[in-house]
C-alpha cells in the first residue's frame, strides 16, 4: 500500500536532494526573495570569495526602506542617509551579482510578497524562501515557503539549497459561510487566538475546508501570511481552479506549452484523502465575528463585541503576567468594551492586507464618510495602486480624508520612517502588534481593512457591522 501523503509531503519529497543520518534533508530551493535587510549575505559572499549559483532563481525587491511619499523624486525622497545607503546597496549588490531586481523606481515595486504573487512568481509545488518571515503568504498558491536569516540567504545564494528538518503537520479546517463584515483577517486572528502564538510551532499548517475553497487568492494570501504568527514553519493551501485562473497570463507565469505542462503537474498537488496530520483543528466560519487585538501579540485577539480581559481570568501564571504587562503597555483597563477604545490613527496596507480586495473592502466603508483621525492607505505594490486608481478607489479614500500613498512596507514596521508616535493608538491591518513595532511606544490594534476604515471614520474601534448607514 502506498503511503498517503499531504500536499506538503509531496512538495517536500520532490525537493529532497539527500538526507543525513540525523534526519536533516538537503532541500532544493526554487526561488529566493530578498529585500534590503540581508546585506550581510552579500558581504559574506565577497569575504568568502563565493559567487551566486543560480542568480535568476533569486529576486530582490526594495520594500522596507522606501518612502511612501514624493516617489517621483527617486532616491532623493529618502531622507534618512542610512536608509538611503541600504537602498542603494541593494541595487549595487544585485547589479554586481546579476540578480533580478525590482527597485524603488520600477513601476512594479512594492512589498515583495504582494509583488511576487502579482507577477505570477509564486507557482504551485515550488519551495520558496525569503529574507522575510511573511513569505508564508505564498503558501496560498500551494507553495512551501519559509523565511530565512542572512546566513541562510547566503547559503541559498551559494548552493541553491538549505538543510532542513522536516516539520510536522497541522490541518486547520474552516467550513461554512462568513458573516457579513467578516474578513479573512478575522478568520486568521480567530485561529491564532485559539491556538496561541506558538500553536503552530515546528509545523506546517494546511488550511482546508469549504470556506477556504470559496475564497479568492487575495483572501487565501491573508490567511497564509499570518501563519508565522502561529509560530508555524509555514502555511499552505492546495491549489485549485481559483489558483490557476489567478496565475494565467501574469507576467512571469508559465506561458504557451509550459503553461499546459505546469498545469498538469499542479493538478496532482493535493493531500491524499487518508493523509495523516499530527494535529487537526476545526473552525466554523459562521461563528467568527470581526476581530481586534487588545494586547501585544497577535494571539491577543477577541471579537469586537468583547471586553479587555482581566489578569485574574488568565489560565496560567505566565498568561497573567503577560496580560498585566500588555495592559500596561497598551494603556488599557480590564473590562473596557473593545468598541469603546478611542484610536489616534489608522494604517491600511501591508503584505497581510495591501492587495486590491483589501483596498476595495476599506473603500466600501470609507465611501461617503469622513476620517476623523489621520489614516494612511498604502497599496502593497505599484500594480495594486494602479488597479485601485483605475477603479476610482483613490478618489474615494481622498474624498474621505484618507492619505493615498505609494507602495511599501511603511508603517507595519516603520523602517522607512512611517511610524506611529509614542503613546498613540493605531488601528492597523498589519500582521504584528508587538511592543514598539510601529514606533517606540506605539500601541497597535490589529484589524481587517473594513474594520480599519470603520475605526478611521468613527475615531474608535468599531464593529463594522453596526456602522450607521451600512456599508456600500
Amino acid at each position: 500500500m502506498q503511503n498517503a501523503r499531504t500536499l506538503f509531503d509531496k512538495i517536500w519529497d520532490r525537493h529532497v536532494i539527500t538526507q543525513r543520518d540525523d534526519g536533516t534533508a538537503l532541500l532544493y530551493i526554487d526561488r529566493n526573495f530578498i529585500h534590503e535587510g540581508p546585506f550581510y549575505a552579500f558581504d559574506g559572499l565577497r569575504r568568502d570569495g563565493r559567487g551566486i549559483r543560480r542568480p535568476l532563481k533569486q529576486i530582490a525587491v526594495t520594500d522596507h526602506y522606501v518612502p511612501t511619499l514624493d516617489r517621483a523624486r527617486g532616491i532623493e525622497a529618502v531622507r534618512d542617509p542610512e536608509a538611503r545607503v541600504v537602498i542603494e546597496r541593494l541595487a549595487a549588490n544585485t547589479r554586481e551579482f546579476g540578480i533580478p531586481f525590482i527597485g524603488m523606481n520600477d513601476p512594479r515595486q512594492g512589498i515583495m510578497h504582494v509583488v511576487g504573487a502579482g507577477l505570477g512568481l509564486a507557482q504551485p509545488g515550488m519551495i520558496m524562501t525569503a529574507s522575510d518571515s511573511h513569505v508564508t503568504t505564498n503558501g496560498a498558491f500551494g507553495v512551501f515557503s519559509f523565511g530565512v536569516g542572512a546566513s541562510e540567504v547566503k547559503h541559498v545564494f551559494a548552493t541553491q539549497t538549505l538543510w532542513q528538518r522536516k516539520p510536522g503537520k497541522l490541518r486547520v479546517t474552516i467550513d461554512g459561510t462568513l458573516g457579513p463584515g467578516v474578513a479573512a483577517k478575522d478568520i486568521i486572528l480567530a485561529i491564532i487566538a485559539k491556538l496561541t502564538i506558538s500553536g503552530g510551532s515546528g509545523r506546517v499548517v494546511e488550511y482546508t475546508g469549504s470556506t477556504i475553497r470559496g475564497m479568492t487568492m487575495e483572501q487565501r494570501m491573508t490567511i497564509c501570511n499570518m501563519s508565522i504568527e502561529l509560530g508555524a514553519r509555514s502555511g499552505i493551501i492546495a491549489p485549485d481552479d481559483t489558483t490557476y485562473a489567478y496565475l494565467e497570463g501574469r507576467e512571469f507565469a508559465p506561458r504557451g506549452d509550459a503553461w499546459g505542462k505546469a498545469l498538469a503537474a499542479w493538478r496532482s498537488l493535493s493531500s491524499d484523502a487518508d493523509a495523516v496530520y499530527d494535529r487537526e483543528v476545526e473552525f466554523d466560519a459562521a461563528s467568527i465575528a470581526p476581530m481586534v487585538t487588545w494586547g501585544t501579540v497577535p494571539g491577543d485577539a477577541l471579537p469586537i463585541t468583547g471586553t479587555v480581559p482581566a489578569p485574574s481570568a488568565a489560565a496560567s501564571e505566565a498568561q497573567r503576567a503577560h496580560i498585566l504587562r500588555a495592559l500596561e503597555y497598551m494603556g488599557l483597563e480590564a473590562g473596557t468594551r473593545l468598541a469603546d477604545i478611542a484610536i489616534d490613527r489608522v494604517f491600511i496596507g501591508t503584505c497581510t492586507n495591501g492587495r486590491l480586495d483589501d483596498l476595495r473592502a476599506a473603500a466600501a466603508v470609507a465611501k461617503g464618510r469622513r476620517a476623523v483621525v489621520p489614516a494612511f492607505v498604502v497599496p502593497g505594490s505599484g500594480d495594486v495602486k494602479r488597479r485601485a486608481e483605475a477603479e476610482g478607489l483613490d478618489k474615494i479614500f481622498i474624498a474621505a480624508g484618507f492619505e493615498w500613498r505609494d507602495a511599501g512596507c511603511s508603517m507595519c514596521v516603520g523602517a522607512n520612517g512611517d511610524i506611529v508616535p509614542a503613546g498613540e493608538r493605531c488601528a492597523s491591518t498589519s500582521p504584528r502588534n508587538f511592543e514598539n513595532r510601529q514606533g517606540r511606544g506605539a500601541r497597535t490594534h490589529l484589524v481587517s481593512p473594513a474594520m480599519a476604515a470603520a475605526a478611521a471614520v468613527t475615531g474608535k474601534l468599531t464593529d463594522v457591522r453596526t456602522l450607521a448607514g451600512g456599508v456600500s
Partner: protein
Amino acid sequence: MEAFVTVSGIAAPVDQPDINTDMLIPVRFLRKPLSSGYRNYLFFNQRFNADGTPKADFILNREPYSRAKILVTGANFGSGSTREGAIYALLDFGVRATIASRFGPFQMTNSYQNGLLPVVLPEDVVRHLSAQLHASPGAEITIDLPQQTVTGPDGQTYTFDIEPSRKEQLLNGLDDIGITSRYADEIAAFEKGMDAESPWLTGDALEPLVQK
C-alpha cells in the same frame, strides 16, 4: 565564526516569555553596519530611555549581569521575524548561549549559523535554573557541547539534544556552505533533473529584471 566547545560564565535570568526579535533589536538599527557595535542595540527599548540613558532596572544593565555569557529566558525566545541582527546583537554583547524551553521559528537556525548555542531544556528545569540565578546574582552556568550538558549553579547537570551536524558545525566553527559543498555532485544532478522536468522554474524569464 568562533567555535563553541565549553562555555562557563555568568548567566542572566530574562524570564519574560515570548521575547520577539523586535525586542531583541528594533528595526531602526538594522540599517547599521556591523562595525557600529550591535551590542548597543540589544533590547534597546527595554535597556534605554528615549534620551539614550540606560534604564537602571533592566537586568542586562545591572552588575554582574552586564557581563552575562548565557541567558536563561522565558519560553518562545526570539519569536517574530527572520532578522539575524538579533543574533549579532546577542553575540556582540558577549552572549554565547541561550537556554529556553522553546525558541521562535528562526531563532535556533540563525543562532547555529553564527556560533551562538541555543539550548532547549524542559520548562521546569529552566525555571529551576532561573530561580538559582535570582537567588545568587552572578552565579555561573557551564555548557559542555561535546558532552551535551548544562551544569547549573547547584552542580546539577542536565543533558540536551542537538543534531550531530549542528554540533559538528559549532565545535569546529564551520561555515555550513563548506559542509554543503561536499554534496556538489548530488546538487548538480538534482538540479539538472529539476530544470528538465519543470523548465518554468529555471528563472530564465527573469533575465530582463537583471540590471545591465
